[in-house]
């Protein structure tokens, strides 16, 4: 007797409940607040630049550095006789720089210091600090044909903790990438001793990405976007900067508004974001985001623009990682990731027939297209999965996946919700119905089975099954 107590795979309340509880045991919703850090990053740079995908939040400021460099380049055109200005005026003058023509030659050199304390830890600068030192060849921005000119893009990002210990390194000398993250998943893990930095040659793809990664106009547009469109931004005052120059401080104060029982509205400070501009050049010197916690303002993100300059195009860049202490360099040997699933190969019907006995629709239904793919079934690609998929623009699907010969009784036990036999002797054993369509197992006369899956009804599938013919 068939088991009529169906379960759908979309509703598994126990698994769902357990996953909810597992997440809640660690992730406290009240303590998750990513917005201040995200806002800070978006305000400083719309396009975080990451050379290694998983060195999170390290190369965040390239776009900003380019934008800042633009500011530096054209500030000569800005009126210097400024005494009293509004926040909006400062922003307009700074953003006016964006339309400046860029120099065609030279090397942009920027040094940016990024401090991150996303958990709002208290104490003496308890977060992580990243020094981003970048050299960017201007010629590649002006003329993409200059890609062959090296170096295009040199950088080194070094992240340290409050004690000065090196936590992360991501760098490129124009010929090699350097990172403490190995691309080889089998790389040995070392929890103590020197930090291993893996060196791997730049690929052509890397070079092209480096040369085209950030168009300065886009970056500059984004730099002021948020502050300019934010009516809460105000001029906090004028300060003396570390080099003795005068600087404007713009601030966006964050408040929490709460309606009290007596109907009155109470506003509580929750933090602030500041941008500091040179009062003469309107160069952005620093951006800082803080939150208010237990009556204390805690800096959670700070970006200091330490150096931005244009060097002559023929400048010899003295790039090195030799000053890093307690690190060990290893040449990366890339080996195959055992969990990597190679790309599928698209086959023709004829090629499919050369591999396996399979069936295809004699006539492709109107509006549908056929795609036959072969997917390696193991990392050594010694066995394959074959899939025959029909799909139309409305996402209606009819697919068959070759699964070989099933163990005796498996199909009857697992696909027990009715069956259908075509005139040509193909058997379909159905799975319990689902709101997402129909699934089952199609077995051809030689005993080979195909997992069948479709968005269509059983009646429609059976009609199509009558049209199945051996692939040739």
């Amino acid at each position, binding site marked *: 007797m068939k088991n009529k107590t169906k379960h759908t795979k*979309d509703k598994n309340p126990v698994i769902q409940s357990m996953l909810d509880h597992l997440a809640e045991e660690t992730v406290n919703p009240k303590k998750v607040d990513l917005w201040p850090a995200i806002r800070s990053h978006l305000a400083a740079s*719309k396009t975080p630049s990451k050379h290694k995908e998983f060195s999170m939040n390290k190369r965040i400021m390239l776009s900003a550095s380019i934008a800042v460099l633009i500011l530096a380049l054209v500030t000569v055109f800005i009126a210097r006789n400024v005494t009293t200005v509004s926040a909006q005026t400062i922003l307009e003058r700074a953003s006016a720089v964006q339309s400046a023509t860029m120099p065609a030659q030279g090397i942009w050199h920027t040094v940016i210091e990024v401090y991150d304390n996303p958990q709002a830890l208290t104490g003496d600068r308890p977060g992580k600090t990243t020094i981003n030192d970048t050299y960017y060849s201007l010629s590649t921005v002006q003329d993409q044909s200059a890609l062959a000119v090296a170096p295009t893009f040199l950088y080194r990002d070094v992240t340290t903790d409050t004690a000065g210990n090196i936590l992360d390194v991501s760098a490129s000398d124009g010929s090699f990438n350097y990172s403490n993250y190995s691309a080889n998943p089998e790389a040995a893990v070392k929890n103590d001793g020197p930090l291993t930095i893996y060196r791997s040659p730049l690929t052509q793809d890397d070079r092209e990405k480096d040369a085209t990664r950030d168009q300065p106009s886009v970056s500059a547009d984004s730099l002021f976007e948020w502050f300019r469109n934010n009516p809460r931004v105000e001029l906090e005052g004028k300060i003396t900067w570390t080099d003795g120059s005068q600087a404007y401080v713009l601030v966006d104060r964050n408040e929490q508004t709460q309606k009290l029982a007596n109907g009155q509205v109470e506003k509580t400070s929750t933090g602030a974001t500041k941008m500091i501009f040179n009062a003469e050049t309107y160069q952005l010197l620093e951006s800082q985001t803080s939150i208010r916690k237990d009556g204390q303002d805690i800096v959670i993100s700070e970006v200091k623009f330490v150096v931005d300059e244009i060097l002559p195009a023929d400048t010899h860049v003295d790039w090195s990682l030799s000053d890093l202490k307690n690190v060990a360099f290893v040449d990366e040997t890339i080996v195959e990731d055992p969990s990597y699933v190679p790309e599928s190969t698209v086959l023709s019907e004829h090629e499919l027939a050369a591999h396996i006995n399979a069936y295809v629709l004699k006539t492709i239904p109107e509006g549908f297209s056929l795609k036959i793919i072969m997917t390696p079934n193991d990392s050594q690609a010694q066995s394959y999965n074959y899939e025959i998929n029909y799909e139309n623009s409305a996402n209606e699907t009819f697919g068959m996946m070759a699964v070989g010969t099933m163990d005796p009784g498996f199909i009857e036990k697992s696909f027990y919700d009715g069956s259908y036999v075509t005139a040509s002797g193909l058997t379909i054993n159905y799975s319990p119905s689902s709101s997402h369509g129909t699934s089952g197992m199609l077995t051809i006369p030689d005993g080979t089975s195909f997992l069948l899956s479709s968005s269509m009804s059983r009646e429609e599938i059976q009609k199509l099954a009558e049209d199945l013919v051996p692939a040739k």
Partner: protein
Amino acid sequence: MTVKIPSLEEKLAVARLKQGDLDGMETLVKRHQVRAVSAAFLVVRDQKLAEDIVQDAFIHAAEKIDQFDESKPFAAWFLRSVINVSVKAAKLQKRFVPLDEDEETSQVADWLVDPDPRPELIVETEETRKLVWKALGELSAEQRSIIIMRHFLEMSETEMTLELDRPLTTIRWRLKTARNNLRKILRPFWNSDYLEMEDEKQD
């Protein structure tokens, strides 16, 4: 979780963000950050890394917002990208998570992929949760992501297919990997109704 229909508030937030108003982003972040961090955490099993992933994903979403159709739910679009990055991160992170692989864990992992006996017949206890957590760690990142998308984010097969860029048949096949050797392991956790059914069969 209900993420299928974009709320008016979410539509407005996306529209504002498209116009360059980052207040729109604030709405989206505050609305989805906890679910996103939780989902990423279940895949990468490291809260700090999960927060980094989600933070980056929001920044990326802000950059690509012009490509997003605001008539569709932001959450599905966004959470798919979170899962995708989490899977990649988990592959690199895998070596940092030593697992005590044993038969019991392996079998629970299989059950997560294809829940049979029926999940509703398993009693949720702290012990079973620990077993499930351990078993999740034994699954590959892709398998784990499928479990999270299906059961935690409640994505449909179609939504999962979009993310994984794999045909529906493959998704279903992965979910349908039949395993029948779980009874011995989970028997202590089955509820009494199921035990009675099993005993009747034995009789």
